[in-house]
């Protein structure tokens, strides 16, 4: 709850215009891009400077008001849903690109800067910020840092954490802290910069970001390969990398996704194929050409029925459009689209895809799989209807089994979306109970009053799902237990 006194204190900090608590305003900050989660905040505050933000946190900390930091609300783990009320703290006004340092190859900017705008600004001077999450046209860099966003270039270039060199953050107690910076080498103490990346708004609020930039590659080529067998496609991914070629992008679409994309976009995908790979390489012209030739050869050796190199930029864009159309096409099928984020080491990719298909059949739910094959990061996506409670129950069971299957293959419960609320109950499966306890103690050190994004990352209730192994048949299933 935000008391009358707290309300007027907050208004005196940010001004009436940027303190919102009318019913409509509260309602529109009760959700993010994650289906099935919604909860009302008590107020929305949109500070215009780090000083204002610090004052807001101090007031909240003193009065025990929860804080949910939020950018554009495009995340897919329920990370910005105010589960336990309190203040939604929107960072969108801190959106200035302060510096593009062409000598040190860094950019320094506010957390409200839109990812695509950062791309544009640095590319204008021949530089390159590689992470490109699917939502980059609207996601904020602050949100990317909080969730450690990935994207289609993860294979060659890594993800957000690989580019964040320094941060300014405000602790829940209101102190403003600088960590990291422009030094390429810096081992003074714990790496608090990296700790904050992917901390999901549970530790502090980022107010300034310094990111590493690369020179923009000279050339880029795009290729598509169609396969009659899922395993052949997956093996191609392994073989390409085993041959010491790291493409910028290696994307995967299964037959179910291809069917849906074709139904919607009519771009002539061969529907008798089981899977397709979409491959991009960038770098110097000669290197790109050489790599693409070798990749094409590997594709054919591994049983690709057809391999096509885009001859023009338009053709390349057309091929990429097929991948980008995947989510849109799926979203048009049924009212609710649940995009998940299971990840395995790339050598287990084929097994994982087969597991997803088996599980979808078992629970009689419609799941299409596409994703970043090169990183082993798959997005099994379920088309369902949140109003059908019985079906949603089966969907939840299916996803639980998918996460367990990924874990069994040495994978993880989330590759790039984050834990948030959606996967809080699975965290200990991945990091173990000692891991969870250590993480909780870290949180305690940053946030002694527990006001930062409560209910996220760590499951709050004592009832949680644990895995029971049934030794005879060797497969796992989940059941509810008192922990």
């Amino acid at each position, binding site marked *: 709850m935000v008391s009358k006194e707290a309300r007027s204190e907050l208004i005196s900090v940010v001004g009436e215009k940027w303190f919102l608590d009318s019913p*409509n305003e509260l309602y529109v900050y009760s959700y993010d*891009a994650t289906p099935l989660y919604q909860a009302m905040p008590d107020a929305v505050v949109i500070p215009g400077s780090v000083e204002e933000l610090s004052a807001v946190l101090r007031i909240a900390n003193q009065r025990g008001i929860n804080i949910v930091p939020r950018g554009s609300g495009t995340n897919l783990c329920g990370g910005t849903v105010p589960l336990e009320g309190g203040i939604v703290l929107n960072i*969108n006004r801190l959106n200035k690109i302060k510096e593009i340092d062409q000598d040190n190859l860094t950019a320094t900017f506010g957390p409200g800067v839109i990812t695509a705008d950062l791309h544009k600004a640095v590319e204008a001077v021949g530089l390159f910020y590689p992470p490109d999450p699917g939502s980059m046209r609207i996601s904020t860099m602050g949100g990317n840092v909080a969730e450690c966003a990935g994207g289609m270039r993860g294979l060659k270039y890594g993800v957000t954490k690989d580019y964040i060199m320094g941060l300014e953050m405000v602790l829940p107690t209101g102190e403003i802290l600088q960590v990291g910076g422009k030094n390429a080498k810096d081992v003074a103490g714990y790496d608090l910069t990296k700790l904050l990346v992917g901390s999901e708004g549970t530790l502090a609020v980022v107010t300034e970001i310094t990111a590493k930039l690369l020179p923009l590659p000279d050339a880029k080529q795009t290729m598509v390969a169609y396969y009659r067998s899922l395993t052949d496609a997956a093996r191609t991914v392994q073989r390409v990398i085993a041959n010491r070629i790291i493409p910028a992008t290696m994307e995967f679409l299964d037959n179910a996704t291809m069917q849906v994309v074709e139904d919607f976009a009519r771009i002539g995908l061969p529907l008798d194929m089981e899977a397709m790979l979409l491959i991009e390489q960038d770098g110097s012209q000669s290197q790109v050409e050489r790599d693409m030739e070798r990749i094409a050869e590997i594709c054919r050796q591994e049983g690709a029925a057809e391999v096509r190199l885009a001859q023009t930029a338009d053709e390349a864009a057309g091929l990429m459009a097929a991948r980008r159309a995947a*989510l849109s096409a799926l979203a048009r099928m049924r009212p609710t689209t649940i995009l998940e984020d299971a990840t395995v080491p790339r050598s287990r990719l084929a097994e994982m895809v087969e597991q997803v298909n088996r599980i979808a059949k078992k629970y009689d739910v419609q799941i299409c799989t596409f994703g970043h094959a090169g990183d082993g990061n798959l997005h099994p996506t379920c088309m369902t209807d949140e109003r059908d409670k019985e079906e949603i129950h089966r969907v939840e069971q299916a996803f639980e089994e998918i996460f367990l299957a990924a874990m069994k293959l040495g994978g993880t419960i989330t590759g790039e979306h984050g834990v948030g609320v959606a996967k809080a109950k699975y965290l200990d499966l991945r990091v173990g109970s000692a891991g969870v306890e250590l993480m909780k103690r870290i949180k305690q050190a940053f946030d002694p009053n527990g006001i930062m994004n409560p209910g996220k990352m760590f499951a709050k209730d004592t009832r949680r799902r644990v895995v029971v192994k049934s030794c005879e048949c060797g497969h796992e299933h989940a059941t509810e237990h008192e922990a």
Partner: protein
Amino acid sequence: MDEIMNCMQCGFCLPACPTYRETGKESASPRGRIALMKGVAEQKLPADDEFEQNMYLCLGCRACETACPAGVPYGSLVETAREVVESTKKQSESPSFVRKLIFEKVFPYPERLQTLGTLLWGAQAAGLQSLAQKTGLMKLLPRPMAEMQQAVDRVASPMERRKREPVMKPETSPPALRIGLFTGCIMDVMFYEINQATARVLVKAGCEVMFVDNQVCCGALHAHAGEKDGAVELAKRNIEAFEQSGVDYVVNNAGGCGAALKEYHHWFHDDPEWKQRALNFVAKVRDANELLAELPEITFTKSLAMRVTYQDSCHLAHGQGVRNQPRQLLRSIPGVEYLELNRADSCCGSAGIYNITNYEMSMQILDEKMDDVQETKADVVVTSNPGCLLQMKHGVNRAGLAGRMEALHIMELLDRAL
């Protein structure tokens, strides 16, 4: 309700939305508005004043529909939301005088609009406009109206209007096509000459052009303002008028009207007979740019040495998907250097009567638009809808570009080169 449910809340619409860009507030975004509609539909929120304001802050430009991966028909959702607001209000209070005047007493009656045109012409002819400005009489008008009227061109005199020939025939016979020009309500009063120019261009392209009797306002403004009954009535009269005319195509030069004409069938959900007649009508509707692009290229006789940029009409680009045709036509004019406008398909803030009802927001959006327009260093900014044209003319004045830059309807520019 199903259409509301289709919104997957991904937020891809946010960067496309002018009011979100201006305010940075979720409530001013398409995703936010759809969430609010869902809240009202599920009776978690009342259809109160705050909801009304949020629904009416939307320009209805439909740029979000182009951006939406899930294909949510936002335009019709916001119209339905406004209907809910208006019907809730009607139960409790009588509609405002201005609304009543506009929607019930003026738009449905072409002759009253003509009378208004005559009055406007009379006032202009008598120099009342400048007199009013000098004497401070203008201060009596609400500021938005007072400012906007400065952008109005000289309107056609009653005499000029009486000279209109009901049918214009091309030199080549038989004509390639017989088309009925949809003259529109405001278009035909304030921009009479643009309708005449459109007719001349179409005739040059080999069409026989008819000014079909008994046609009325398209109803778009009614529909956008939640006055569905009025809109449906007007649609029926138009369908009847063009059925009787026997033309091959119904051609219009106003993106907003065109989008409404092409969606008439959506207005007759529970009326199978009228729905079929509407579908037949819709099949014949073409924007002038769209039709001209399908016809053999016009041979222009004059060269226009000027730099030209193009501001999309939202309802032509996002509503009807007509984007390339006007650009191609502009490039086909001898002498014209075409310059693409940054964010050309982002709304100029005109949006029907939005620049009157939401003046501040409209001007904020317009000023940003004019920055982009100035950057092109064009001599002419071309539009394809009367509302946008008026707004851009006003924008030219506001930006202090009068005398250096012109705002023209695309048909005027084509006509100049005939």
